[in-house]
């Protein structure tokens, strides 16, 4: 069973929730898009229902809510390490099923890869609650169905936005104290995308051979990819980061240790002091990223890392299509590695 909110009632719910939650959702930034006269849609704090852009795909994912672009790990005063003060406000994010599944991948890396969990990530993540925005159709570059990330049950509330009403399934009982229980009850459970225009086939188990790593197919990306890292920064699942220490210009005895998103496509990702580095050409970087997303991560954790949100394809300035690359890779694997299952 669900609840039927009028637009006014849902607006009122958001106002009430804001007393206890920082509410984030996809928001329109007029004229800030990649091309002239286009808008940017990215996650930001929501003041009212009208600001939530629920019927377009956001350019950026909600990743930065749980994994900030830059995060201070320590403040240094001479040789003292001070941890930053924690914000204790609870966070509510309006997001789609693919992004919820993407955040689960971030959880896997930060909380479950290795014996120690990342305390900075854990502290942010446990404050977060999900409002899933129903997504029935997807968008033209989505391939979430192929990646099995079109469906999730991991949400506190699911909503269907209508012209002048909002249907909601409320799974977290804590939320029921923020609206009148006299609201009409309706039969509502959220639907999910059943089919995308773009379909990809991904290797499913088996060992791929050395020939795949050295295959000519990667050569195209040597020149086409410009190593800008947009695919990494817009990807909900890219979790890599680099820590850097700084000291303040006016006082060298004080400073910070910060971590910042890092991109496997960008120069310097593998550089070691002394001059050794790996994957110097951009084709190798494309190969590394693609295999991480649809092969290596699966071998380690039992599900693919890529959730098929298609933002990498949306944002590549060189119009490289990652989804086409996966299909091409699967074809190459089928031709060369009979033992690898391609569904």
């Amino acid at each position: 069973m669900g609840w039927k909110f009028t637009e006014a009632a849902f607006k009122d719910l958001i106002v009430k929730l804001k007393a206890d939650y920082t509410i984030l959702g996809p928001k329109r930034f007029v004229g800030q898009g990649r091309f002239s006269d286009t808008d940017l849609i990215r996650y930001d704090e929501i003041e009212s229902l009208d600001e939530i852009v629920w019927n377009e795909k956001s350019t950026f994912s909600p990743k930065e809510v749980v994994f900030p672009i830059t995060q201070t790990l320590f403040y240094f005063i001479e040789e003292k390490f001070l941890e930053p003060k924690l914000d204790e406000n609870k966070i509510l994010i309006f997001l789609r099923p693919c992004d919820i599944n993407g955040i689960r991948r971030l959880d896997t890396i930060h909380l479950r890869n290795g014996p120690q969990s990342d305390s900075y990530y854990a502290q942010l993540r446990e404050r977060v609650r999900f409002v899933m925005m129903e997504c029935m159709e997807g968008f033209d570059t989505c391939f979430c169905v192929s990646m099995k990330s079109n469906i999730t049950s991991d949400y506190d509330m699911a909503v269907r936005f209508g012209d002048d009403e909002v249907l909601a399934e409320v799974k977290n009982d804590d939320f029921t104290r923020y609206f009148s229980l006299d609201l009409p009850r309706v039969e509502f459970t959220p639907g999910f995308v059943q089919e995308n225009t773009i379909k990809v086939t991904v290797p499913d188990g088996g060992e791929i051979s050395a020939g795949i790593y050295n295959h000519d197919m990667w050569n195209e990306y040597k020149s086409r990819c410009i190593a800008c890292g947009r695919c990494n920064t817009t990807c909900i699942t890219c979790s890599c980061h680099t820590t850097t220490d700084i000291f303040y210009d006016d006082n060298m005895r004080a400073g910070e240790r910060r971590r910042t998103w890092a991109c496997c496509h960008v120069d310097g990702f593998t550089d070691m002091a002394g001059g050794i580095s790996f994957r110097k050409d951009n084709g190798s970087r494309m190969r590394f990223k693609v295999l991480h997303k649809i092969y290596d991560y699966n071998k380690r954790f039992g599900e693919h890392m890529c959730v098929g949100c298609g933002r990498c394809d949306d944002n590549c300035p060189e119009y490289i299509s990652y989804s086409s690359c996966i299909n091409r890779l699967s074809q190459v694997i089928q031709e060369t590695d009979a033992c690898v299952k391609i569904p």
Partner: protein
Amino acid sequence: MRENPMMPKPHKVIKIDLETDLESTFRIEVDTPPALGQFYMVSIPRIGEMPISISGIGPGWVDMTIRNVGKVSRAVHSLNEKSILFLRGPYGNGFPMDEFKGRHLVIAAGGSGIAPVRPLLEHYYRNPDEVDKLDLLFGFKTPDDILFRQDIDRWKSRFDTILTVDDACGIWEGECVGLITEYVKNIKLSEYDKMEIVIVGPPVMIKFTAAEFIRQGVSEERIVVSMERRMSCGLGKCGHCKISEYYICLDGPVFRYNEAVKLVD
């Protein structure tokens, strides 16, 4: 309060030994000994953090041999005895010491790759009966680059040792000149199931030295390598050291070569 695995702890520098123009060995106070082959994340607040393997282990201390080639290592080289250095760790898996027991072990190290195997050599120097035989093969670029000269002289007295330099520079008094790979065939290997080979050094050295041992009849399963990659966390989160489905900081740095050879950067 939640435990913060990124929080380094202060450790006292006990002793600094100059090894070459670029490298020094820092002896650092620690409470609990690491396993042989593990590494620490070494920090200088406001400068940065870097992974450094252990080049010596003793009661209450570890040695780290650090080359002065980067921002953090430069700062470490400006420290004095009694300075404080910040450490996290130890991390990584270490060498499979139990599997080496009773075997004919060959340790091949190139350049600064000798640092992570030094604790191994000291262990067998003190416990020579733990292995059936130990052969050492060391390669350095020039005579000036040779690390742990005194240790090598001492090890030589107990184990068959080949020490080679790529370039004699007109000052080399040793017998061997040339790449380490050229001297693999000079080691008299035992039967297949008695051998264990440890190879540590730059990626190119590991690749060609392993190939040479394989040509001499050793199988990939009998070779152990220790790998180095860039790391920011040492905890399996930052992604810099990932190769194929493995994270060097968690699953390595020590790998059997039959596994390592399948890993593609």
